[in-house]
């Protein structure tokens, strides 16, 4: 039998469990489907010509439609990054790990991604990286299809080329 509480109740613990069922939207679904096919799609602004990845339907800069999809290379530059030493609730990644802004060649905004296959201390601003994909048959059409980016060994990008496009 349970004992009567020795202390008065100070709080109750509860887990809020709310079901959500998110829609990708047809436009972003094209991007996600392409990831499954090992392709990275961006969208081009009909006014400025700038390329957004993941694709957006309209440019936040010009408000013009971005209705042209373009395929982007799988390589780019680490514009900036941090080394994470904190375990995050609900995520299983070995620490320390590197999270970076990766500016894909030909894109005007950056993606966030993990940088792996090198020591955290070897990652630096301007290092060239390429996408490492899940193997064929395992890609499901979501952001985890690109497992991470890894250094390519190409020469670093010059500082001025990326410091204003983090």
């Amino acid at each position, binding site marked *: 039998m349970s004992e009567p509480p020795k202390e008065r109740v100070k*709080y109750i613990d509860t887990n809020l469990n709310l079901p959500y069922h998110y829609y990708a939207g047809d436009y972003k679904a094209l991007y996600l489907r392409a990831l499954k096919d090992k392709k990275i799609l961006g969208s081009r602004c009909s006014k400025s010509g700038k390329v957004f990845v993941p694709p957006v339907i309209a440019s936040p800069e010009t408000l013009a439609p971005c209705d042209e999809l373009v395929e982007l290379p799988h390589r780019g530059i680490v514009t900036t990054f941090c080394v994470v030493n904190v375990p995050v*609730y609900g995520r299983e990644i070995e620490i320390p790990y590197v999270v970076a802004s990766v500016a894909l060649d030909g894109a005007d905004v950056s993606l966030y991604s993990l940088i792996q296959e090198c020591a955290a201390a070897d990652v630096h601003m301007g290092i060239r990286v390429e996408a490492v994909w899940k193997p064929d048959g395992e890609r499901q059409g979501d952001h985890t299809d690109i497992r991470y980016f890894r250094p390519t060994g190409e020469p670093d990008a010059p500082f001025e080329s990326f*410091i204003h496009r983090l």
Partner: protein
Amino acid sequence: MKRPVAVVGVGQTHHTSKRADVNVAEMVREAVDRALLDAGLEHDDIDAIVLGKAPDPLEGIMQPEQYLAGALGAHLKPIIRVHTAGSVGCTTALTAATHVASGLYGRILTIAFEKQSEGNAMWALSPNYAFTQPMVAGAGGFFAPYCRAYIARSGAPGHIGAVVAANARENAGRNEYAHLRDPMTVEEALNSMMLWEPIRFLETCPSSDGAIALVMANEDHARRGPRKPAWLKAGATFTEPMYVPGRDQVSPLAGRTCAKWVYDKAGIRDPWNEIQVAEIYVPFSWYEPMWLENLGFAPLNEGWKVVDRGDQKMGRHLPINPSGGVLNTNPIGASGMLRFGEAALQVMGRAGEHQVGGVKTALGHAYGGGAQYFSIGILAAEL
């Protein structure tokens, strides 16, 4: 302001990691009672209430102003709820000011709070939504890359973050309401664990429970109140989208635009020499030099030199965050109103042990989102 607006009462709770002795309503009521007492007013004197807080998932109560109507004394009064990410506390105070400036309301109670211990902020702020790029590591992991870019582009030496943190802690030691008050040296900060390189543990804000309430009033009420009012000379909020190509995340244009706007309205041409104290939103220590530049207190890439010279310390040219700031007290939704309220206390001359001498003009500032939401108020001792 179309009509003069003043802060006439300030009340805050003591801030700590876990207020297990009170529930949300009781904690909020504590700040409300103190603000009303400070202003010499009763609930009946209040015409409307403006409440702000950060995301509802932090406590698990949706639109908590509805549940809190009783604790706020809001029954049969107008109440609105503002939410503009981390900037919300300052924006909430400015929204209250707009209500007064409209001439429709004479006295407004405005309040901001967060009871972070009642939820999991790391979870609430970086959940893994399908289809969107994962935030990966909470607010620290999001902002650390921009601190790195600041260091790279300004050439700031690595110890600046620790100097900011130690100074903020020294200031918090003089603020009886601050959450973290134990003395801390620059060396301790430098030797603390690297959480999100380049951000160290002791260069990071805590999670706090706390609330602050202000009473804001029109000129007539302000002059009749028991205390010297703090006059709001100018206030504004400016915002920008996240994914603008080439957006400067280190010194966002929205922040620079907001600063220029309020300085113009307040007739300030040289903020470094015309403002005597600033309470700015620094959740990670590197943001202090970054915002010193963004706010026009230092030229581009030279904010760190202010810190290196020590000109931001108490007793020096422009004390920054004499309260100890967000680095030592962070009830998220309330943090912006604490900056605004502390700036008000400074011009009222009632900041206690952390009072700066001879304050005529003070600045309160907050930011939020992915450094997208900016909110600034300029408070003055004289109308």
